[in-house]
């Protein structure tokens, strides 16, 4: 219980500072909108084919916009040696990580919820009964992205060329989660039913989330402290 309380304290601190400064959320939302706009130049946004690839587009937007949030996650602690202070505090590495992952998850979820109406309007998507299931996919996929992303944010925080290293390392790692989320979202956006053979993608998403959350919690102390 104490473990969770301290992790939530870290998450609350991150969210509070984000609500006050709004630096990640604004940058990431603006970036998401720009990508949605750019995609419309790459192909005809009103054609029926777009609906088949719409899930993929959406997750690419989320992944790109997410990296901006993740990059800031640990980097914002570098000023005034805040990271050292956090590590010296009684909060363990795993708690710090979990708190930051939760904060990133919520921020990214807000960005996603704001981009979806824009996406719906731009690409003429008709949501049927699938919106509820889509939110489940969104939550599972977003947790996968943030848990891996936050761990890599911790790994790259002190590296040279941090901004370049994070996307290069994190995108290949995210791919299984992205694959599952894209596959399911494309079906849901197209309004097709999820057959039994697509359950495997749900399982893949859940397995990815569980495995990488466990690994990240186990390894983050090594990454941050040594």
């Amino acid at each position: 219980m104490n473990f969770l309380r301290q992790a939530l304290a870290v998450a609350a601190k991150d969210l509070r500072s984000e609500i006050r400064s709004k630096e990640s959320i604004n940058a990431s939302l603006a970036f998401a909108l720009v990508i949605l706009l750019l995609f419309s130049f790459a192909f005809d946004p009103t054609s029926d084919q777009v609906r088949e690839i719409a899930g993929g587009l959406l997750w690419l937007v989320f992944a790109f916009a997410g990296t901006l949030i993740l990059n800031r996650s640990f980097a914002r602690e570098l000023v005034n040696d805040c990271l050292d202070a956090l590590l010296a505090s009684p909060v363990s590495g795993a708690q710090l990580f979990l708190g930051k992952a939760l904060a990133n998850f919520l921020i990214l979820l807000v960005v996603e919820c704001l981009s979806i109406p824009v996406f719906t309007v731009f690409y003429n998507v008709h949501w049927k009964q699938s919106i509820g299931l889509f939110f489940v996919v969104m939550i599972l996929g977003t947790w996968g992205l943030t848990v891996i992303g936050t761990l890599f944010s911790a790994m790259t925080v002190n590296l040279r060329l941090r901004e370049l290293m994070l996307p290069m390392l994190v995108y290949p790692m995210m791919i299984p989660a992205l694959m599952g989320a894209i596959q399911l979202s494309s079906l849901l956006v197209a309004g097709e039913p999820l057959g039994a053979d697509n359950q495997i993608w749900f399982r893949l998403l859940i397995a990815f989330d569980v495995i990488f959350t466990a690994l990240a919690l186990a390894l983050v102390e090594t990454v941050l402290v040594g």
Partner: protein
Amino acid sequence: MRTKLIVILSVLAGALLAWNLHTIFLRVPDEASQGAIFRIFYFHFPAAVTSFTCFFVAMFSGLVYLNKRDLRFDAAAAAINEVAFAFATITLITGMIWGRIIWGIWWAWDPRITSYFICLLMYFGYFMMRRAVDEPHRRARLSAVLSILASVDIVIVWKSIEWFRTQHPGPVLEIRGGGGMAPGMEAPLFWNCLAFLLLESALVLVRMRQQSIQSEIESLRRYAHAF
């Protein structure tokens, strides 16, 4: 001692490879449906086995580093990963050549091939990250963690042939639940795996020696700059 080991391993690997080449190209008959191109499997499969084995050995070496904090294990992990990366590239290229002949395309976006490519990208990131960290212990720690994470992905690659509907041929060998190859055709495959593993070990030892020489040069350079 190490030089002797390198020579012994290289000679063994060379002799075994020469003997295998003789068997594969002169003794083994063409496969019934694929013709001569199936011989590429004798290189594709051993290279894949070697790279997988080595990625895992490197991960364990990283784990040992995390346990003992001895930089030699990190140097070994880096050397093994570098050579494994070369073998993984060979796997991908031989696979592409086979695909061009049999499927008519160089690249199929099949989950297993894609995952293998992802795996290569990850290790590319691993080498890039190693260059970006100066402090040796920090570099070793991050490398070990990245190696562990990448290995989890390799497991997904390994299992994906069963998880996903796939264009990649299903398991061929009997030990993995396939129908098996003709009796005379399977033995050279395992001999070539051994040859590749011996070659890999020799190359790893060479690479480790280069690394220790490199760090010696660096320390001498620092020493020279101190005056």
